[in-house]
């Protein structure tokens, strides 16, 4: 990347209410931002799924009383990685470790409980920070594999 050596991390952020129709917009916007890195089309698809899962989780779980704010932040680090942070100010997660287990859902029959599993599968790193009443921040990192190969 021509700009890979820049010391400034390029960041964009989006803020929108947690409505289902914004899920597609968020993943498309982040994928467009990510497309300036050396991601393959497959990797851009993986990024779209990961964003979709993180934002859908906010829509479904964060605000039981009605839509609340979602903030999506995408950053290209000086190392050429994409870091995506999806934050809400909702009710938070009681047991983060349990929420990360495959097929765990608080709404069985309605949801598969695979959201975080998919992010884990498609991103290089996943971090979930949450506490009841304190909102949730899901952060994942993705590195273009092609670029990693070139560097070695």
């Amino acid at each position, binding site marked *: 990347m021509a700009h890979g050596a820049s010391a400034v991390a390029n960041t964009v952020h989006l803020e929108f209410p947690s409505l289902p129709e914004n899920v597609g917009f968020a993943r*498309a916007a982040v994928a467009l931002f990510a497309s300036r890195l050396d991601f393959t089309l497959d990797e851009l698809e993986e990024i779209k799924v990961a964003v979709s899962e993180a934002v859908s989780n906010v829509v479904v779980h964060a605000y039981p009383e009605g839509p609340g704010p979602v903030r999506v932040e995408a950053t290209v680090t000086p190392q050429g990685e994409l870091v995506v942070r999806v934050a809400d100010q909702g009710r938070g997660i009681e047991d983060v470790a349990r929420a990360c287990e495959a097929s765990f859902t608080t709404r069985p029959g309605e949801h598969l409980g695979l959201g975080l599993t998919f992010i884990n599968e498609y991103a290089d790193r996943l971090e979930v920070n949450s506490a009841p009443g304190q909102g949730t921040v899901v952060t994942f990192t993705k590195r273009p594999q092609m670029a990693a190969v070139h560097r070695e």
Partner: protein
Amino acid sequence: MAGIPTETTGLEVLRYGRGACTVLRLAGELDLSTAHQVRNAFPAELAGRRGRRHLVLDLRRLRFVDSSGLGVLFELYRWVTAQGGRVAVVRPTPPVARALRLAGYGKLTTAAESVDEAVRSLEGDG
């Protein structure tokens, strides 16, 4: 390219009958905002009606699915199999195929190269 908004936000659902099968053709993106379109096109009451026991999911033009979208595909699977039917999946695009595999959907369903092949395969099961 990835991320042209007009291409990324909708889902088209077409339902038609073929012999003992209902065929659902999905085109576009299946997620939290579009899952209800699939439910509306194939409500639980429809499973097994009019002698159409089986379901063919034509996914050749489905570009995107996430776990919310998979959730509705699992619902259809439960409804159809509860009526003694089976489900076949026709040529999912690579990203969709991967998501189906991860969720274990491929193990539950029959893979087919075309709608015709899917119909033949399901009807052959009797």
